């Protein structure tokens, strides 16, 4: 992190809490991450660990209240996301694709209407025919079959894969630096998943955009991203070059997560990690993974581990009291 202004995204010490009837949910206790220009970053971790919350705060669409957000900084392309000016800068610099294409398009408006409204605010004062051509180009960009028909359709008339292509086309209509993709393929079937991820990968590379990809498809993460953040219960537990983390995971959670991926060559379905993410109300005061960790010692129950360099390297960090130790069975 030589020069912060060069970062596409910089999050420092983000904390997100929710007040509910039972108490306070500490969803994200204190998280930092950064994305460099034209860098592709993966964000992995099991469901409910706060990945979407992180992306939503970066895109300035996290509803607060109810969320109680504290942070040292969230900067997009060197500009803080706070205040009206910040939000305007975010709108200019960030695109986001949501998890479920069936809920991220407005059910009551035609695709052409939704796209025109984006274009009108991004490129005001053009002619109707120009907007139409831009929309057709955008759909062509995502290899959409029959773009004319799609423009005249309502979302319910499109298949899931087509809807997600529309979403990607819409997200790419403004020329932004940073693309946030929140599980863009979770709601789709496997063959479509491959197509969509390839498409996303290609477009991001072509346009030299930075990408944050949240996905449960670990194969895709490995293929597409340069660096990966592994999250557990709101904390980053390991971060490093994707290839290195996948080949020699240091954190016991990463090890478990990667081992849980079924492999074609392996023997049957993998076991997964026993247990669940701890409650966010009164979370354990030590390591949040301790109750499920094979390496757990009394120390782990007392103090939360912080991110520390692996082998003195700056680009590989692990938050574990026993990171140096060899994996136990």
């Amino acid at each position: 992190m030589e020069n912060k202004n060069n970062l596409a995204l910089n999050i420092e010490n983000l904390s997100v809490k929710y007040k509910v009837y039972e108490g306070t949910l500490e969803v994200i206790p204190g998280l930092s991450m950064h994305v460099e220009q034209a860098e592709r970053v993966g964000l992995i971790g099991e469901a409910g660990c706060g990945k979407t919350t992180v992306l939503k705060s970066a895109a300035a669409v996290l509803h607060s209240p109810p969320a109680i957000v504290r942070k040292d900084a969230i900067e997009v392309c060197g500009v803080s996301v706070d205040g009206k000016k910040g939000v305007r800068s975010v709108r200019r610099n960030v695109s986001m694709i949501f998890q479920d294409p069936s809920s991220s398009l407005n059910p009551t408006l035609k695709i052409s209407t939704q796209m025109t409204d984006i274009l009108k605010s991004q490129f005001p004062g053009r002619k109707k025919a120009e907007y139409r051509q831009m929309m057709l180009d955008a759909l062509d960009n995502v290899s959409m079959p029959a773009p004319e028909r799609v423009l005249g359709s309502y979302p319910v008339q499109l298949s899931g894969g087509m809807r997600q292509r529309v979403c990607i086309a819409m997200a790419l209509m403004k020329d932004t630096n940073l693309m946030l993709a929140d599980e863009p393929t979770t709601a789709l079937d496997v063959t479509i998943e491959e197509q969509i991820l390839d498409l996303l990968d290609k477009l991001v590379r072509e346009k030299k955009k930075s990408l944050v990809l949240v996905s449960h498809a670990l194969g895709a993460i490995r293929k597409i991203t340069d660096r990966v953040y592994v999250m557990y219960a709101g904390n980053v537990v390991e971060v490093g070059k994707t290839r290195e983390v996948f080949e020699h995971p240091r954190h016991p959670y990463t090890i478990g997560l990667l081992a849980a991926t079924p492999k074609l060559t392996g023997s049957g379905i993998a076991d997964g990690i026993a247990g669940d993410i701890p409650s966010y109300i009164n979370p354990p005061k030590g390591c949040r993974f301790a109750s499920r960790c094979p390496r757990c010692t009394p120390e782990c129950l007392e103090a939360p581990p912080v991110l520390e360099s692996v082998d003195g390297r700056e680009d590989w960090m692990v938050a574990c009291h026993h990171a140096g130790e060899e994996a136990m069975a």
Partner: protein
Amino acid sequence: MRKTILAIVKKLLHTIVLLLVLSFVVFSFIRLIPGDPVRISMGPMTPEETIAQKRSELYFDRSLPVQWAHWLKGVVTEGDFGESLFTHRNVAEDIKQYLPKSLELVFYCAIFILIMGVLVGTISAIFKNSWLDNLIRFISYLGVCTPAYAIGVLLLLVFSYTLGIFPIGGMPNIPDNYVRTGMMGLDCLLVGDFALFGQVFKCMVLPVLSLSLGSIAYMARIHRGAMVENINADYIAFAQVAGVSQGKLVMKHLMKPSFIPTLTIYGLQVASLIGNAFIIEVIFRYPGFSQYSLNVIQNKDPYGIVAVTFVFGIIFAVVNILVDIGVAFLDPRIRINTSE
């Protein structure tokens, strides 16, 4: 598009069947009520032969289905709803005279409710959980649970009796040569007599207010709820990040889906206005259809009662169809499902 029209036609056919059944049921009720309507109408001193002749004229000496069929034939072929034993003229004429006045009242209310309900609901949703929202919520609860007649009496007391801003009831006389549609305000406008329209308007303010306030409160609650729910929808966040301007986001992307539940409730509220108008027309001495309805019911006027019920049925059905069309217009999911 063709399929949409087909769906509407189907709906209309359903409605016609429903109205036929309704008219028959009401018809049988007036025969079941004890007492002789003809005798009531003509008084105790009228000789038996005259009564019998009148009864036969009105088909009361025939069986129920025959009487019903005769009535139905009259309605369908000549718009003849039978003779009223209360006003002693054809019920159709009575309807023509009184119904437009009530429709006018209801029409003003419907517009007022739509605008105010959506406006108040939207303000409430935008300033969610602020002091303004809480104030609106408090007033809404009061409005929903206070009956229209209580509001009417209260308004009369404050604005007419104490402050003297509005007349205490009744309507100005409309000259006979003014009558075009039967709607008082509209007729004045059509003739170009704005001074008289002003008077009519002044007399309409309090009835419209007392008839609308409850519905406005209810609509505002529903609309606020729908908007607040949809604000959290993914498509709003997506449109926001994708760069849709804030104004469009609220007024179009958020408003259109939120309007679907509101419109359904709106239809029910407008239909129920006709029922609520009964009491309001009495309180404000408004010469409308509800006043007339009360009179025919109290006088056990058979053809009058049937016609009144029938007209209410038609109004409900029409409002219902309009709401269904409106909802389908707003929500492509419904449109596409019904047409496939």
